[in-house]
């Protein structure tokens, strides 16, 4: 299948976001709902006000239909984010963020801002963390050689962003080294 040139090298952000929808989140249902036998798991009977653990895509859909409220994940609360932000500013390496933090944060901020405390502050902090990591990633490109590049704790979306540039550069370097070692 012929892909457009941009998609040949990497996923589109929408695809990465789609993959993030499979992570589990807590919701508080607003009405009673029957159990849902799905392919990968059976969603149990949902009775308010008991919390229920469902995949993110289902949580977003129920929220949109006003049948549930989403409980933000533990890492998305203000004090945790503030300490993560400080950590990000202090050290040169990437701080330990959840693997899909950028796309999950984006989805939740878009879909349920009313369920998150201090949502504007959270939005601002996420943006700051993202910019700090972006500049670190650019600086990390300096260490690239043809064998490996170690950038620990990068999120899924950030890896996706860097992938084309790194891949092409590393490929080209690998070819040059391969050819010069042949003799």
């Amino acid at each position, binding site marked *: 299948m012929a892909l457009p*040139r*941009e998609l040949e*090298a*990497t996923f*589109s*952000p*929408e695809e990465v*976001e789609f993959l993030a929808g499979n992570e589990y989140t807590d919701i508080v249902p607003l009405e009673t709902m029957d159990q849902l036998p799905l392919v990968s798991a059976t969603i149990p009977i949902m009775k308010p006000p008991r919390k229920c653990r469902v995949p993110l895509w289902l949580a977003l859909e129920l929220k*949109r239909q006003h049948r549930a409220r989403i409980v933000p994940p533990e890492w998305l609360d203000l004090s945790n984010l503030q300490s993560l932000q400080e950590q990000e500013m202090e050290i040169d390496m990437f701080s330990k963020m959840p693997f899909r933090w950028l796309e999950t944060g*984006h989805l939740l901020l*878009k*879909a349920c801002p009313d369920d998150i405390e201090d949502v504007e502050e959270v939005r601002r902090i996420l943006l700051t963390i993202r910019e700090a990591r972006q500049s670190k990633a*650019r600086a990390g*490109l*300096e260490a*690239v*050689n*043809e064998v490996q590049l170690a950038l620990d704790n990068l999120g899924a*979306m950030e890896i*996706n*962003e860097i*992938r*084309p*540039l790194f891949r*092409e*550069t590393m490929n*080209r*370097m690998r*070819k*040059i*080294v391969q*050819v*010069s070692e*042949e*003799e």
Partner: protein
Amino acid sequence: MDYYDIDGILSENQKVPCTCNVSIPGLGHEGREVPAGSKVELPFWLAEVLAVNSFVSIHMPIPFSSVVRNALKASPTSVSLRDICTNYYHFAENMLHVISDEQLAQLTLDTLRKRSLVIADGALNPQGALQQNSDFINGLDDFEKYLLRTAHSTHRSLTHWHNSTSY
């Protein structure tokens, strides 16, 4: 895949200086014979085949002369690679097949590394980069231009996704 790679084919068109070890018929002007010992400039695809059979010896072409090498060693980001050779990295790969030169390989790797940093920066804002750094952007060879284009399009789709509020 490398056989059909258009950039590879184009890069093989680069002329290299050679000395004929034997006299070669048909190579000269209007099909005349070229006497042994004379210097000719042949496209790489021809020179490689002839050199494998020892009919010619290939000399170091201009893109890899010591003048260019010193310039690249001193400041890789201020050299205009395009003026030297439109497909520098491909051509380096081709030459390294024939000539074994560890220093050249190392130099090419370092050049690529340093220049890709500037390219990554430029990809975030090509308009601004063009105004500030137009010599560098105009001096990128084909591979680096491709890097710039892909890096920019990934960045653009990411920003577009990030700013989208529709749900």
